[in-house]
């Protein structure tokens, strides 16, 4: 009997070890590169740039379209004669929703492919992982997504919103609406944690109530506990910093518990038109989102961009804020290269922050000397067709500030 017991244990150990090894391998392997590299024709006359987004994994829901928009800008520029008379040859890599892979692919792009700049990244975890690579190689990353601030590197152009251009305007708007009890739900990584830290400081300063704060591992789909806590806390509004397809699970499970966005208002920082479409617009209908761009923005550049994107990627495509930032980044880079007369990352950066405003789908846009974009904040409400109705906009374009004075007093961003 003892013998049998031991055998059983042996088998179990083998099984356990095998399972662990395989889990690790599964992780490692889903990260295989998806090298859809059309850079083959990159002769001596082409300028190589990197495009690095998650084309697989939990962030693919959001990042694939940013890659598309980046590619559209590159194609348009190439069709119009390229940059300084040279064609742009993009090298596309898959970051696979994993920060370590982002870092690895970034150094591959810079060191093996010799790209002069990289457009990419979405989660702050991926940006933080790539930062040392860009600083070490003195290359330049164009980062298209809203983020938590509290970072300032000469080697990254932050075109997405700083906290004072998205999270804080959204918070101020909610406060004006009379919402007093606020519940924070986010994915468990640096952006939601820092964004929520900033929100908490302001909630405290304004004497409002923080009725709960919950985190879910990135990609996590089990929200029963979080939903239970929201139900018990009865907040006036939820600030949602979940990223990727966790949102689908969150909204589904909230709806199942009778707390859809029409019952408990939700202000989301990472749900745009694309995510609303992919989730099924009925799931998020009535929910709020804060961005610096909505597809429904009424200006000429935007109409042109939306039409061009639809012509290339299908009539039922939708456009989101990070896509527009990904798109305008390429144009800003081109303008900066032409101003500098060089593709050298240092010179391009110096030119980029002194450029005049360029026309973009957001309106006229200009980078400040802290490498971030001056832009207007909007609050939209999700409609049945997946589009957002713009409810509110900041009175003027807001100057980016990576360090919220309430949360990080005394810190400023000084570059070069």
């Amino acid at each position: 009997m003892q013998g049998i017991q031991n055998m059983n244990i042996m088998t179990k150990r083998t099984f356990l070890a095998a399972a662990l090894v395989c889990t690790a391998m599964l992780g490692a392997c889903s990260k295989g590169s998806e090298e859809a590299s059309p850079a083959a024709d990159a002769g001596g006359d082409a300028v190589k740039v990197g495009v690095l987004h998650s084309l697989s994994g939990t962030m693919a829901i959001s990042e694939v379209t940013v890659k598309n928009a980046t590619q559209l800008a590159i194609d348009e520029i190439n069709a119009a004669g390229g940059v300084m008379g040279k064609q742009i040859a993009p090298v596309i890599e898959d970051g696979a929703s994993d920060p370590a892979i982002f870092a690895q692919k970034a150094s591959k792009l810079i060191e093996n492919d010799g790209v002069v700049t990289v457009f990419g990244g979405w989660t702050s975890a991926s940006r933080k992982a790539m930062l040392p690579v860009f600083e070490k190689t003195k290359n330049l990353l164009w980062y298209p997504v809203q983020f938590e601030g509290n970072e300032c590197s000469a080697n990254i152009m932050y075109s997405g919103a700083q906290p004072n251009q998205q999270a804080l305007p959204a918070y101020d708007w909610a406060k004006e609406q009379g919402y007093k009890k606020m519940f924070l739900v986010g994915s468990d990584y640096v952006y939601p944690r820092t964004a929520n830290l900033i929100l908490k400081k302001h909630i405290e300063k304004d004497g409002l109530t923080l009725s709960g704060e919950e985190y879910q591992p990135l990609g996590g789909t089990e929200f029963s506990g979080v939903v239970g806590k929201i139900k018990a806390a009865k907040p006036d509004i939820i600030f949602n910093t979940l990223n990727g397809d966790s949102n689908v699970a969150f909204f589904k499970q909230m709806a199942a518990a009778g707390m859809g966005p029409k019952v408990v208002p939700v202000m989301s920082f990472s749900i745009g038109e694309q995510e609303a479409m992919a989730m099924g617009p009925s799931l998020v209908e009535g929910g709020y989102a804060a961005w610096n761009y909505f597809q429904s923005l009424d200006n000429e550049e935007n109409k042109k961009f939306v039409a061009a994107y639809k012509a290339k990627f299908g009539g039922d495509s939708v456009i989101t804020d990070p896509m527009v930032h990904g798109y305008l980044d390429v144009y800003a880079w081109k303008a900066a290269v032409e101003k500098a007369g060089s593709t050298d990352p240092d010179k391009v950066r110096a030119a980029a922050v002194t450029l005049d405003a360029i026309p973009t789908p957001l309106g006229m846009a200009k980078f400040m000397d802290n490498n971030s974009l001056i832009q207007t904040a909007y609050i939209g409400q999700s409609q049945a067709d997946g589009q957002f109705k713009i409810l509110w906009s900041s009175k003027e374009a807001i100057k980016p500030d990576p360090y919220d004075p309430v949360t990080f007093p005394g810190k400023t961003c000084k570059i070069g």
Partner: protein
Amino acid sequence: MDAIFLTGQLFNGFSVASLYVLAALGLALSFGLMRVINMAHGEILMLGGYLAYMAMSLFPGPLGLFVAMIFAFLGAGIFGGFLEISLVSKLTARPLDTLLATWGVSLIMQQAARDLFGATGVSVTAPAWLDGGLTLAGLQLPTLRLFILVSAIGVLLGMAAILRYTRIGLLVRAVNQDRPTAAAMGVNVRLVDCFVFALGAAVAGLGGVVLALLGPVTPSVGQSYIVTAFLVVILGGLGSIVGTTIAALIIGLITALSQIFVDVSFAQVLTLLFVIVFLQFRPQGVIAVKSRALDAE
């Protein structure tokens, strides 16, 4: 801590456990009988999710969900049977090879799903009759979660009935207890293996439908469940249905109840810690299966 919230979390624990049971049963069965570690099991869940998506697009009515369940059950079952015949049965004597081969299958399936349906995943909307909930003494139980719980109980009862009362069930038990003797007595062990593997896959297919109701269906969705499914199988005692069920309940309840005090990330840490400590004291799992198949090594 108010009582309603506490009972709510208890209920959530059962609800989470029912999903884990559906995800882990097939793994437990095929390991118990054949000592095959099926790394593609998570992708069979994913297959169930996509089958549900297709069925519910074809039959959008209120009963579409039942069509989806049948569709996913049969579809995943047939796929499982095919996988067993074409691959697993050729490698049963070599556990590590099956592991690698099924891992390869899982990668192929993920890429196929990415190519067929796109990397962003698809959304399955629960039918309207699953909205809302029952209110019992101030405690609101979402209909969707009740439905999932009932489905899991149904699957467990069905499985138990098959094993206990049908001829094929008898053969499965015989092979599980002593494969060479059963074979010597004229039992077609190949057929039994194939049946069990297909049944396990079919149940995972149902699990995929449930998962589609609660969260996103993406090419990589199987991977978020496979680790927990392995944990459940190990904790339960390899190859035991009762053990698997109890283990799923334990893990579901720990996950849900620890979330009263900590957030989801930390709840996962606690669950893993519990499993490690538990296995230190009871390495054979909740239920120790006395099967010659497991002793032969």
